[in-house]
């Protein structure tokens, strides 16, 4: 029996109805990773989807506690010719990192000096932090940077070395940008593992970050992974936001990505491409 056949327990259901329902859910499961059309018994979940859920949660729990091999990750980034520097937050281990987000936003004392030595005026500090999924930034960091960096370099942006942070949260980018003398900061961070995806990253940009910067001062592009937001779409959206941010000299809720079109004038929606059967021409 398929683990997904919907509502196996209705005694009055004719086989024809059941086949129709199975076909219905089969179609719909192609358009979303959500757990739809699950097998039930009474009002409750059947055993198979119950255990499917438990496996996914176990994977996520294991992803949160997995170690981050910062040195190996720095070596991978350096192998593509990038200037790389590794730093740490004030959190001393993974448990303290989970319980003390304030420490995850502060730079370890010794690393202030290391960054100060590399300080020179630049437009954008680029920070990669393990966050809540070390595997996510390890996996998506290098290919995503390949989509982001060449265009910025070609356009003459002055970029900082790549700063790799252990046990870092988004806010640590503010301290890093300040120490480096950057006008703005981009932070790529491993997002909290979910059941469907344990390895996704988010991009955060902040204009003129300081010690008093809040999350309302940032813009975020989230959910970047192979079946989420694609590298191309994320890089495209990021580039649009960065350009706007430098023109308007601000970031946060006042900066929206509605004005973004690519060179051909297509909107971001067209670039991402919906090949779905749902009519949405009601605009």
């Amino acid at each position, binding site marked *: 029996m398929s683990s997904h056949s919907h509502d196996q327990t209705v005694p009055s259901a004719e086989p024809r109805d059941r086949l129709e329902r199975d076909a*219905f859910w089969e179609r719909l499961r192609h358009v979303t990773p959500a757990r739809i059309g699950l097998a039930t018994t009474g009002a409750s979940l059947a055993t198979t989807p119950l255990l499917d859920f438990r496996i996914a949660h176990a994977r996520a729990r294991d992803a949160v506690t997995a170690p981050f091999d910062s040195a190996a990750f720095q070596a991978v980034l350096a192998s593509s010719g990038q200037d790389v520097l590794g730093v740490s937050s004030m959190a001393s281990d993974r448990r303290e990192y989970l319980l003390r987000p304030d420490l995850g936003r502060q730079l370890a004392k010794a690393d202030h000096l290391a960054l100060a030595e590399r300080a020179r005026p630049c437009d954008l500090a680029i920070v990669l932090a393990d966050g809540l999924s070390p595997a996510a930034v390890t996996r998506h960091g290098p290919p995503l940077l390949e989509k982001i960096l060449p265009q910025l370099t070609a356009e003459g942006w002055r970029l900082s070395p790549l700063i790799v942070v252990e046990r870092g949260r988004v806010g640590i980018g503010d301290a890093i940008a300040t120490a480096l003398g950057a006008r703005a900061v981009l932070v790529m961070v491993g997002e909290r593992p979910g059941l469907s995806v344990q390895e996704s990253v988010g991009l955060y940009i902040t204009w003129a970050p300081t010690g008093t910067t809040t999350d309302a001062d940032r813009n975020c592009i989230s959910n970047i992974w192979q079946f989420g937001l694609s590298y191309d779409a994320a890089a495209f959206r990021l580039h649009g936001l960065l350009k706007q941010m430098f023109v308007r000299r601000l970031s946060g809720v006042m900066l929206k990505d509605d004005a973004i079109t690519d060179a051909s004038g297509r909107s971001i929606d067209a670039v991402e491409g919906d090949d779905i059967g749902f009519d949405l021409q009601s605009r």
Partner: protein
Amino acid sequence: MFKATIGNQRYSFDNLAILLAKASPHRSGDVLAGVAADSAQERVAAQIALADLPLRHFLNEAVVPYESDEITRLIVDRHDPAAFAPIAHLTVGEWRDWLLSDATTTETLSQIQPGITPEMAAAASKLCRVQDLIAIAAKCCVVTRFRTTIGLPGRLSVRLQPNHPTDDPAGVAASIADGLLLGAGDAVIGINPASDSPDRTHQLLCLLEEIRVKLDLPTQSCVLSHVTTTLDLIRRGSPVDLVFQSIGGTEATNRSFGISLDLLAEAHAAAQSLGRGTIGNNLMYFETGQGSALSANAHHGVDQQTLEARAYAVARHFQPLLVNTVVGFIGPEYLFDGKQIIRAGLEDHFCGKLLGLPMGCDVCYTNHAEADQDDMDVLLTLLANAGVNFVMGVPGADDVMLGYQSTSFHDVLAVRELLGLRPAPEFDDWLLKQGLLNQDGKVRLSELPSPVRKLMLPQ
């Protein structure tokens, strides 16, 4: 200065904020903020001192300064002395007894509601056991209306939460179909968008409108974007039913969210002017959660549960349709495990209901918290007994966009059947019309309703 003595040990607490914080049941967020009790005995000493404190005192000492905080000003300036009169002579401890007494009925509670401040409600909650939080909240009744009636006795409504990692309209629609066929969606169909793009938000609003009209659905829709985005979309003519916003309990927290009371009032008025509600015009949808003020570095040394209750003063000002405490979303640094999440969810529901709010709860946890679905079963079952207005319905309890676990359509269905609770009456009628109820009135899918089939597979 407040004092209590246990045995030979004397304890003192310099001000009301400290007293409330030290009296709070243990949670990681108060430890993180440095305001928690230093020992189990100090916590009980603070509770003893708090129990002796007259409720009148709360009208004379603010936990966040009146001069610098517009929420304190809202609480003080809007306080209703006439509604307060019946409890004005009580201490916090006596008030807890009063709340639990047979003489205090649903009607009594609704009469005193404008006389209660958030800090009073928070104080009472700190003396209550979980059982008290449930028993008192169950006596409260808060009913709101837009296209459905939410919060009637014997009813439990669901926010259908059809999120998709890239806001794909077909993917969103598929999750909506799943939820509707399992009896969810009577509180709202509400999407958390992955993007804050106004164009994408508009597109999702149009999708929800199309589904609602084609299925003749008695419910309301919402895309949970920032209030400034919603305000712009109202001006552009998008089909906006509800105005969503996350809110906190201090002015500085709300500033970190990019909002103020004036901005909320502007959005409230704009949405009201659309006149889209058919049976009522409660149209604000607020989300809250303990820990947001500390997260925004805006807690003023006040404990997270008291600040959460202060957020309800903001909500109360706008007669919302729905207030949702997203209890376990914020993470283990604020609520470490299942025990802390369960207690916090019941405290929030209790305080919100006392303050006259249509409280719902996103019974949830993240994968870095020490919690699992068993803890969610406990909290959901307790909240349903406490008379919670609505909870979340997420496909398989797994939010594939936000990456956390909530309650599933099945979870709600099982709890409704366990406790004999029905959906909102208008939505219940719709389920019957679609042939989704069996002869016992249970939601069981025997045949796909043809409007749903036509909508999802249009060829």
